[in-house]
């Protein structure tokens, strides 16, 4: 058990340790496990602060401000849209059985399709509408990929609410239009929050689609990482620093939804402990 824990944490230790190494220690032999004189220059460099000892093959590093801002914008935008659209659809599916089994098939399909299959034709559209290398372009794609996830999770939560709750509300004079917002919404807040964090994590970290759809303007964190690798001559320290910063919010959010994790990961098929 202890061995499993060590193995689970080792790569993260290695990543953080690398982010604190000085340039000569990056490729040193024997390996420097923990730098004797840890430096913060790798972190300074990715934020455009002066880092006099950081001399790399690619010259000056492009600051990663933009990548962080882009990733945050994309993740927040996707999450907001996916939750609104997903919640409405989940309510309709749960309470009115809209679409029947075919909805499940479609939602499952979004997880089966190799992204490249739809990306090639989408590139045709995106070029026409100037959506390539833009934040809205990324949000649109991530929305399509993740909205199914929201439906799977949220629908399970709505299903758990007894029908009597709505019947009582409508007897009290709440209109049909207001029920999903005034009555049901407060009851599934927890599920919505979990779904939102899921979507946030998934779109914050996506690599494949972003690699195809972004050039310079809409660079997200994983793409910035990729650029540091190839554009800046394998700038190991800054890459590790960027990675460390990028995984912090994910780990925090991950712990916040730990209880809902099982349900989310199994796409709602397994009821997590509440």
């Amino acid at each position, binding site marked *: 058990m202890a061995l*499993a*824990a060590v193995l*689970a*944490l080792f*790569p*993260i230790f*290695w*990543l953080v340790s*690398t982010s604190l190494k000085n340039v000569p220690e990056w*490729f*040193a*032999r024997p*390996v420097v496990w923990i730098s004797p004189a840890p430096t913060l220059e790798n972190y300074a460099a990715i934020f455009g602060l002066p880092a006099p000892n950081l001399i790399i093959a690619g010259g000056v590093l492009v600051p990663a401000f933009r990548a962080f801002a882009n990733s945050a914008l994309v993740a927040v935008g996707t999450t907001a849209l996916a939750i609104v*659209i*997903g919640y*409405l*659809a989940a309510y*309709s599916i749960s309470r*009115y059985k809209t679409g029947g089994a075919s909805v*499940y098939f479609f939602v*499952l*399909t*979004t997880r*089966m*399709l*190799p*992204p*490249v*299959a*739809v*990306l*090639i*034709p989408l590139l*045709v559209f995106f070029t026409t509408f100037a959506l390539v290398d833009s934040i809205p372009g990324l949000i*649109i*794609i991530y*929305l*399509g990929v993740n909205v199914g996830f929201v439906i799977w999770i949220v629908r399970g939560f709505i299903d758990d609410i007894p029908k009597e709750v709505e019947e009582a509300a409508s007897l009290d004079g709440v209109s049909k239009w207001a029920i999903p917002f005034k009555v049901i919404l407060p009851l599934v807040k927890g599920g919505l929050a979990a779904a939102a964090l899921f979507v946030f994590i998934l779109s914050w*970290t996506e*690599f*494949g689609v972003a690699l*195809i759809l972004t050039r310079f303007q809409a660079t997200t*964190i994983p793409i910035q*990482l*990729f650029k540091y690798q190839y554009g800046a001559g394998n700038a*190991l320290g800054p890459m*590790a620093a960027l*990675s460390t910063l*990028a*995984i912090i919010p*994910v*780990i925090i959010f*991950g712990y916040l939804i730990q209880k809902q994790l*099982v349900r989310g*990961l*199994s796409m709602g*098929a*397994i*009821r997590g*402990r509440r």
Partner: protein
Amino acid sequence: MSVIQSFARKFKFNLLLILPLEVVINFLLIVPFALAIYLSLTNWEPVLGRWYEAPIVGIQNYIDILLFPRFQGAITNTLVILGAAVSLEFVIGLALALAFFSWDFRAKSVFASIMLVPMMIIPAIAGFTFQTIFFSEGALNDVLSRLSGTTVTTDWLHVPQPALFAVILADVWQWTPFMFLLLYAGMTALPSDPIRAARVLGASETQIFRRIMLPMLKPIIAIALIIRSLEAFKIFDVPFIMTAGGPGTTTETISIFLYKFGIEFARQAWTSAGAIFIFVIIVIITLRASRPLLPKAGE
């Protein structure tokens, strides 16, 4: 309000709620997919002009790509990674879940939390981290050097078999927690009466596991395996960052192949054919295997 009237209103209301979803799915899934099918039947390449003017060549693209050894190689590589990674993840995950389930030890929740960490790591970053572990001046070689007393300088990611193995290892590291989590959740949800009854009747722990727990866990095992296999089939980020499909094409997965030929080499029509072929195969296999995933009629 008459029955018909209320039915009409109900009908409108639920469709209105689902309308945004329909727009998204149609715009992002059905239309592009239909276009992909059309493109796969043409010989369109962007340099040759507009896509709607490209001549239709029928199923020629499908024949060509299926006979292309590199595509076959990508399928083989993906299946090797999928088979090795998913089965390792399952065995280790099951062992860990069993240990968690049957032993009571302190700091259980701390260990559980630690186990979940790899899953949270951004795949691209996991790929980068494992690259720095396996490269010539990486952590692995240092450990090997100390153990063997010689200096090991092999660049593991540039030797065919080890590179493939490294990709598998990275996947196992990242996704074993997933198996563990699902199987453990499944075990804690099992009814305790049959297990207790069997124990009273003198069944051994092995018998309890094999005859009682395993059959009851079947649906969850199926779900875990299906979800992991689907994801592993699309594996892209980690091998792309670690090896970019190399050395040569030894770690080139289906997704990397499609990316290279569809985007870098701009063989859109051809790649569409490949992607659709793969998609159809996945759908057929998944639909046959995914009965436990779909909601039951009575639910």
